[in-house]
């Protein structure tokens, strides 16, 4: 599955690089002009898909003549693509670490701005049939608990919470993305899982959420930044302003994101 997908991504990237590399005159015009028109590509963490899609539509409405294209994927995959030269204007990461990686590899222009925060929560089958009340209940060996692998941001947050709560989980699976954790709970394979508050909100009544106080030990902060190779830095900055501004705050808050 991965290899053909990667080949296609590679080919598409190659075509995009060829197509998007602007002639020199055009670039200088973008830099001196103030009109917000043109096309931008936003690389955003998978957990931002619903909110950013909404914000992108608002942006296109508020600024006629602009087009916002998104690439939603795991933050670390996005950083890999960006450092390999993928053409993009804006990067929004689901944690500080991946933004730091992007900054260190020199693809970011200026300083990133934090725009949202997310915490973990317990999700169970609708109605919570196993009666899970608190975080330590998840250590019950009879429960099928699914979490993220420590290598991905939500798994790192899970480990932090385990340490601070002094509870050791025995998960039946460590998934490589938070959506896979949610999927295992929604499909009834797992009794409980640890996902972000926003994922639980997005799943609606397909799951029951059990909030727990120790979640505060691991807060993921989402930073956003304009990229150095942005083909359209003016529009890119305008989009970042929308996300970090009051309108962005409102949309993000309604999806369950906390203020950074």
């Amino acid at each position: 599955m991965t290899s053909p997908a990667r080949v296609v991504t590679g080919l598409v990237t190659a075509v995009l690089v060829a197509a998007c590399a602007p002639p020199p005159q055009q670039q200088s015009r973008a830099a001196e002009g103030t009109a917000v028109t043109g096309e931008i590509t936003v690389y955003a963490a998978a957990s931002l898909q619903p909110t950013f899609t909404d914000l992108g539509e608002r942006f296109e409405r508020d600024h006629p003549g602009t087009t916002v294209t998104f690439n939603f994927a795991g933050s670390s995959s996005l950083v890999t693509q960006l450092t390999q030269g993928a053409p993009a204007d804006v990067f929004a990461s689901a944690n500080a670490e991946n933004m730091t990686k992007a900054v260190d590899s020199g693809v970011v222009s200026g300083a990133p701005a934090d725009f949202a925060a997310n915490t973990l929560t317990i999700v169970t089958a609708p109605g919570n049939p196993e009666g899970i009340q608190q975080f330590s209940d998840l250590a019950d060996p009879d429960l099928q608990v699914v979490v993220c692998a420590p290598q991905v941001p939500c798994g790192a947050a899970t480990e932090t919470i385990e340490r601070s709560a002094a509870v050791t989980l025995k998960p039946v699976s460590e998934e490589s993305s938070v959506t896979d954790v949610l999927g295992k709970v929604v499909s009834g394979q797992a009794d409980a899982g640890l996902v972000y508050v926003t994922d639980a909100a997005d799943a609606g009544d397909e799951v029951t959420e059990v909030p727990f106080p120790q979640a505060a030990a691991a807060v993921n902060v989402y930073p956003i930044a304009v990229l150095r190779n942005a083909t359209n830095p003016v529009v890119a900055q305008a989009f970042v302003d929308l996300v970090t501004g009051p309108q962005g705050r409102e949309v993000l808050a309604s999806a369950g994101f906390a203020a950074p």
Partner: protein
Amino acid sequence: MSRPRRRHRPVQVGLPRWVYVPATLGALFVIIPLLAILVSIDWPNFVPLITSESSLAALLLSIRTATASTVICIVLGVPMALAMSRGGFPGRPVLRALVLLPLVLPPVVGGIALLYTFGRQGLIGQYLEVLGLRIAFSTTAVIVAQAFVSLPFLVVSLEGALRSAGSGYEQVAATLGARPTTVLRTVTMPLVLPGLVSGAVLAFARSLGEFGATLTFAGSLQGVTRTLPLEIYLQRETDADAAVALSLLLIVVATAIVIATASRRLAGPL
């Protein structure tokens, strides 16, 4: 498929030269990405990377599960290929198309289908659950996923061999009074053994590389369900060097299988 080449051909028909241009491009298209992996390997750390606890656990699990699923493919696939090529029952073309579907199905879709069959609330899984058998998140789930996607490879390969072998020798054996089981054992199977071997190798290789259905259906836990492709996918998140090193390991294992079967086929009777 290989056919006996005993007759002498008086005229050698050469290929038009232009054929070699796209053929070379095609070969490069396959070879260059493999070379790219070799080039990007972090050689000084290669051995520590592939001998880490998680890497070894993934490799051993992959070999164990791929072997088990290949055995299942042989046990179920050989009779299937026989029935589809020689059997007389109505609706064979339809059944054939259905059985070969996993060949063209995206593995993720296969995983979802398995989930709704053998999952805890699945069509069959809910009854297994009552019996206390739980497939979800177990090594069994990995083997089931691999067998599901690999079975058509063995069936297609063996069915092709059965068709091209024809049934002349079997008819002779039958007229000499051999019973169907005897004909199958002493005539048919030895005749199509190379086809069976290459089918089994294809099934093993496909099982070894299985990713999508395993991820969707079995989950991912070191030593239990996290096979080599899943380990590579996970390592890529944090340690690109480890992912590349493991990729090479998988390429080496796959190459070893191809070479082993190629030499066996050359040494074989056909």
